[in-house]
C-alpha cells in the first residue's frame, strides 16, 4: 500500500477546506468522539427533523484523514434518513476494517476513496472516528462504555 494513494486529492481537498466545519446552535443531537491513541477529539452536532438529518457540523482537533472523513461524511449524510445513515456508518466501518467486499452492492459512493485505510491498521481509527461519533450522536441514549465494547477497534466515543 502506498500511503500517498490514500492521501488522494479529494481527501487532501477536504482536509484543506473542510465542509460543514463548526458547531450548530440548538442542535438536538450531539456527541464528542475521542481517539485515545493520539488524543484527538471530534465534536459533532446535528439536527434530526422527522428522522432525517436536516443539518450537521463538526469541529475538533484531528489529522488529515480524520478531518477529511468527517468533512465528507457531513456532506454525504445531510438530507438522509436516520436508517440510511446507520447503514452508511456500518458500511464505512466494515470498509475501513477490511470486512466489506466493495464488489458487492453498497451505498458508499465516493466514500470509497478511504478504502485504502484498511492497509494501514494504525490509521483505521482516524478514518472511523467521525462515523463512530455520528453513531453516538444519533443514539444519545447509549452509554460510551457500550460503544467501546461494540466497536471492533475499541474506539471510545463519549456522549456529552
Amino acid at each position, binding site marked *: 500500500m502506498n500511503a500517498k494513494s490514500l492521501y488522494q486529492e479529494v481527501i*487532501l481537498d477536504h482536509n484543506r477546506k473542510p465542509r460543514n466545519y463548526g458547531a450548530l446552535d440548538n442542535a438536538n443531537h450531539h456527541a464528542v468522539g475521542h481517539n485515545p*491513541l493520539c488524543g484527538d477529539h471530534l465534536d459533532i452536532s446535528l439536527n434530526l427533523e422527522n428522522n432525517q438529518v436536516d443539518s450537521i457540523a463538526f469541529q475538533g482537533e484531528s489529522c488529515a*484523514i480524520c478531518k477529511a472523513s468527517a468533512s465528507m461524511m457531513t456532506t454525504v449524510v445531510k438530507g438522509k434518513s436516520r436508517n440510511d445513515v446507520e447503514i452508511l456508518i456500518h458500511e464505512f466501518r466494515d470498509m475501513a476494517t477490511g470486512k466489506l467486499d466493495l464488489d458487492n452492492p453498497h451505498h458508499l459512493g465516493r466514500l470509497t476513496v478511504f478504502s485504502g485505510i484498511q492497509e494501514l491498521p494504525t*490509521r483505521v481509527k482516524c478514518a472511523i472516528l467521525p462515523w463512530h461519533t455520528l453513531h453516538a450522536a444519533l443514539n444519545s441514549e447509549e452509554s460510551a462504555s457500550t460503544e467501546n465494547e461494540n466497536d471492533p477497534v475499541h474506539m471510545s466515543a463519549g456522549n456529552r
Partner: protein
Amino acid sequence: MKIIDATLEHDVKFANKMEKVRADFPILKLNVNGKPLVYLDSAASSQMAQPVIDRLVHYQTSQHANVHRGVHYLSEIATSEYESARQKLQRFVNAGEDREIIFTSGTTDAINLVMHGYGRKFIKADDEIILTTLEHHSNIVPWQMLAEETGAKIRVVPINDAGELLVDEYEKLFNHRTKFVGLIHVSNALGTINPVKQMIALAHKHGVPVLVDGAQATPHMKVDVQDLDCDFYVFSAHKMYGPTGVGMLYGKAKLLESMQPFKGGGEMIASVTFEKTTYNTIPHKFEAGTPPIAAAIGFGAAVDYMLGIGIEEIHTREMELLNYATELISELPGVNVIGTAPSKTSVLSFVIDGIHPHDIGTLLNQEGIAVRTGHHCAQPVMQRFKIPATSRASFAFYNNRSDVDAFIAGIHTVQKFLS
C-alpha cells in the same frame, strides 16, 4: 609540507568508529517501503546489536534452566549468569551492593513495585506526593491509584516554555505532609535533562524519599545512584539496546528491607506454612516467580556493549546528531521544536503548522523513516504546550548524518504534499 589537523583527524576517526558500530545492528540494514530504514524511534525502543543477540542465543542454546534451588549443571550456570547480570547492573549504576538491584519486567513494573511496597505501607490519607509535569504516565498513574486508595494528594511541579522544571516552585511544594517525590530524570517527550541531584538534595532536606525514573537517562549518560543519593532509581533494558521484558529497580537496602512485598509467590519466601509465611531477604523478596532470566542476561550483555563503546562516545555522537538535526529543522518554515532546554538528550519533538503528527508519521514511513507521533504517554506535557501531540525523532549512537538528511528531506516532502 604535510599539515595535520589534529581535531579533524580525531573527528574522522570517531566517525569511522561509529560507522563500524552501526554495522553491529543487523536491523538497520532493512528496507522499508523500498527505502533504507531510517530508525529515529530509539527513545521508544532501541535496536539490538549482534553481540547482544549472540549472547541471548548462547544462553538459550547452552545455558538455560530455571535459576536458584536447582543443583544440576544448567541450573547452576543459569543462576550464576543471572546473578552476574545483576552485578553488571550494580556496577553500571554504581550501587553499593548487588542486593539493591531488583530485576523487574521494566520501568513501569519497577514504579508499581515501589508504589505497592513503599507507598501502600507508608503513605496515608492527606499525605502529599510530589510529581512533575514532565512525568511519563507510568510515574503518574500508579501514584494516582495510591492517592485514590489512601486519600493522599498529588502536587505537580510546573515547567517553563523551554520544557524545564521550575525548581523554585518545586521547593515551595514541600510541607510536613510531603511523603514522597517521583521525578523523571530525562523527559521522554522533550528530552529535557532535569537537575535531579539538586532536587533529591532538596527533598532530603525535608526527609522525603525520591524515586527517579531513569528510563530515558541510562541509554545516554553515566548514572551514579550513590552520587545522586536517590532512594529509588528505575529503568528498562529495551531502551538501552537490550531485550524487552526486563528492567530494574535500584533501592537503598534499608528502604527495600522496610517495604512490604509487591507480588507473592515462589522465590520471594524463606518458608511457607498455611499459618505463616516468612519472606526472603532482598533482592529475592521482590522477585516472585521465575524471573526473566534470558532477558536479564541480555540486559547485562547490553550494558557491556554500551560500556565497550563508551558512554562518553555515545553522548558525543548523539549530541552531534541532535545539534545537526536541530540546526536543519530550525531552518524549515512552519516547523516548531517543542522542548528547547539547553540540557537535553537526543530527542527532537516538533510540530508543523497545519499538519497533524499522524499524517507526518504515515508519510515519513512511506520514505522508510520511523518517528513516533502522538502524546508520548505524557499528556500533561502536551496540555502544557496546548497541543494534542507532537512528532518525535530520537537519535541513538547508531544513527548517522545520512539519517538526519533523509529525515529533513522527508519533512520537506510532507510539507509539500500536505500544504
